[in-house]
């Protein structure tokens, strides 16, 4: 009788241990899947100006006019939070204010004028580390491109695209290199400036 009880208890104890291990494993797997630290896969494209009095870059005091024959200075900055190495290209295009800017399709030669067509802005960037992702106010690092100085200019080709419209939209499109096609593909990321065009 005692022997029978002993065997039953042993079995119960083993079953208990087995289920404990099973439950702990399930919790561990679930936590690694659902509670993993997601730092987001994104690329940040921003426009900045340089404040010479305070000697800092700021997202403020953007130019509001572009005069024919005159230049305007602006800076763009790209941050790689994608978790992998990225090869970026920034294309700067001028278009009419009425032109719709899409997340899917880039502006083309029929509806825009590309500035610096033969001298495109390109850079290969390392991904940001977890600690770098937390510090969004940094302006230097291997995952940051820029701030890059861009001189906005106007010419007759740009004026032809504007067709006499009063305002011009300067669009900064971010393109990413696709290793499968060995070509740049529009990422859908853009930022823009709306300027009063003075003929």
């Amino acid at each position, binding site marked *: 009788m005692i022997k029978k009880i*002993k065997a039953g*208890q*042993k079995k119960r*104890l083993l079953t208990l*241990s087995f289920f404990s291990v099973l439950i702990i494993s399930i919790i561990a797997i679930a936590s690694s899947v659902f509670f993993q630290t997601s730092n987001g896969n994104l690329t940040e494209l921003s426009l900045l100006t340089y404040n010479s009095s305070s000697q800092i870059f700021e997202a403020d005091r953007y130019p509001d006019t572009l005069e024919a024959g005159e230049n305007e200075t602006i800076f763009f900055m790209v941050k790689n939070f994608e*978790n*992998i*190495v*990225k*090869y970026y290209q920034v294309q700067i295009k001028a278009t009419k204010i009425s032109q719709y800017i899409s997340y899917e399709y880039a502006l083309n030669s029929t509806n825009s004028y590309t500035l610096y067509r033969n001298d495109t802005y*390109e*850079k*290969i*960037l*390392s*991904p940001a580390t977890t600690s770098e992702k937390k510090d969004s106010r940094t302006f230097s690092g*291997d995952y940051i491109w820029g701030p890059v100085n861009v001189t906005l200019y106007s010419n007759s080709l740009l004026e032809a695209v504007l067709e006499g419209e009063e305002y011009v939209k300067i669009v900064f499109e971010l393109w990413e*290199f696709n*290793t499968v096609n*060995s070509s740049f593909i529009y990422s859908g990321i853009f930022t823009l400036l709306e300027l009063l065009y003075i003929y």
Partner: protein
Amino acid sequence: MKKGSKIILIIVCSFLLTITIASSAEAQTQQTALLAIQQAESKLYETISLLEDVSTTKIDIRDLVKNTDDARQLIFIAKDQYNNANFTEAQEKASEAIEELNLIMNELELRKDTKQQNNTILYSLLGVFSAIFIVLFFFSLHKWIYPWYIEKRNEEYGKLIIKYNEETEIERK
């Protein structure tokens, strides 16, 4: 034919021959430069693909990314030189870029292999220690925990006597 005319004819022929050879050499240099640029570009795309793959692991490749970007700039300069008909310089820059990219790819492969070896060692150790832990756990369960549990159980319930309520049983009958 007069002696003077002969000399002029020889000079003209030599001149034409020199021009032909020079233009042929120029065309060859141009061709070589173009080929070098194409090779460099293809190598760059290959390196970027490899960098993308490796960056998903936890290998530190920041220095290699920076070097790849430098190589990209060299290719850009090579193209610029080519467009300005400086084919020798273009070829030099493209070759420099190829050399740099080859070094980067070798280094990447080396770091990948090292990481793989380290991972193999780490996971092997983890497996061995887990196995030891499991064996020790079940051994201690069998050797100490279970006897201790039985001892405690007996201490607590061993002296209990089962007493049937005989009167109720008789009444039922």
